[in-house]
């Protein structure tokens, strides 16, 4: 795993975490076989004496001396529950399933808390969430046919501050939301995770299990398509002037000057990933 320096000091959308370091936790108590999780890890115990393995370099751990598993859970996991729920909603597109997924993920995180080195709690939890969701897919496939409720969840007018927003913004938001819902799943999920849920490119790549370059490629194409759909809705600038090949299957980070944004994880920002489902 190469360094993920991005030349992006504030890291707002940069690569925030080396998520490959986030090891899937063991789930020794679950009844179902769980091949994605490491079966060799010890049964975590929660007590007054947190056990940090010898293989975890102490300087890299954020676990403080004397912290119990509960302390770590409270300090590092609880603040991420909202993010976990939003990502779960994006993955399941259903409130009941999202809540269930978060609960099961929290349970696994709690049981594995003593194997967690304290670094990148969000990446660690999202890895747990992703693996949990994958297992739920396996054993609950029929329920996936359930009608998605997400469109209702995301109607901006339900936001508390909606009344204070200018009508112009409300109309624009409605058009954007409608455009988002029309995107193919692969594109929509990237937009939801990055722009709606607020994940970094790298976090989204990890959740979706695609290379970072694919996330950027899809994100940019998806936004471009949202932009194009806004024009007939009365927004947007119309056709861009002489803007070459952007949406013709060759979008992405071919731009000169991208500062190593790809981080080398399965393709740099310049690595163009063509997706055949573009239309």
């Amino acid at each position: 795993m190469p360094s993920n320096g991005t030349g992006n000091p504030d890291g707002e959308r940069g690569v925030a975490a080396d998520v490959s370091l986030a090891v899937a936790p063991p789930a020794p108590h679950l009844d179902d076989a769980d091949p994605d999780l490491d079966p060799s890890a010890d049964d975590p115990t929660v007590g007054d004496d947190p056990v940090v393995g010898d293989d975890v370099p102490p300087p890299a751990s954020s676990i403080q001396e004397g912290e119990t598993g509960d302390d770590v859970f409270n300090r590092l996991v609880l603040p991420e529950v909202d993010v976990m729920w939003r990502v779960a909603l994006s993955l399941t597109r259903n409130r009941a399933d999202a809540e269930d997924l978060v609960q099961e993920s929290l349970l696994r995180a709690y049981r594995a808390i003593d194997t967690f080195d304290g670094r990148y709690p969000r990446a660690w939890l999202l890895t747990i969430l992703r693996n949990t969701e994958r297992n739920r897919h396996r054993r609950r496939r029929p329920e996936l046919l359930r009608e998605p409720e997400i469109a209702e969840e995301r109607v901006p007018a339900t936001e508390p501050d909606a009344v204070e927003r200018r009508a112009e913004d409300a109309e624009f938001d409605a058009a954007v939301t409608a455009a988002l819902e029309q995107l193919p799943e692969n594109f929509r999920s990237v937009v939801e995770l990055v722009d709606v849920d607020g994940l970094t490119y790298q976090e989204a790549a990890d959740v979706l299990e695609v290379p970072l370059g694919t996330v950027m490629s899809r994100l940019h194409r998806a936004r471009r398509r949202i932009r194009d759909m806004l024009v007939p809705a009365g927004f947007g600038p119309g056709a861009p002037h002489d803007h070459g090949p952007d949406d013709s299957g060759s979008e992405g980070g071919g731009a000169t000057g991208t500062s190593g944004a790809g981080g080398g994880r399965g393709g740099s920002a310049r690595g163009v990933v063509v997706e055949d489902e573009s239309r």
Partner: protein
Amino acid sequence: MSAKDARDEPEIPLLPPLSESSGICGGPGQMSCVEANELIQFYVDNFIDADATARIAEHLGDCPPCELEMVVYKRIIASLERCRPHVPEDTAQRLQRFCEDLRAGRAQYTVED
């Protein structure tokens, strides 16, 4: 989307040579509209280096159509962020209670088969 699908996606060269640009902007030594358009989302995401940022900023200052593109993308992103769902109060309470149960050793999760 699976990792397998990602691997199946072929790579092709991205851009035609800049000489094919019909951009009205981009004098000698300046960024063309084609180049600016390729960079514009990296720019709004603050995901390009300082040199490229300076070059595209210079272009945007001279090219109202490209600047409008940039503004539209910023509006779209801001709009999407406004769509961020808040955890419903009842859900938040149930999750909080679940965490309390975890810590108290009371949590039970029944795996459905």
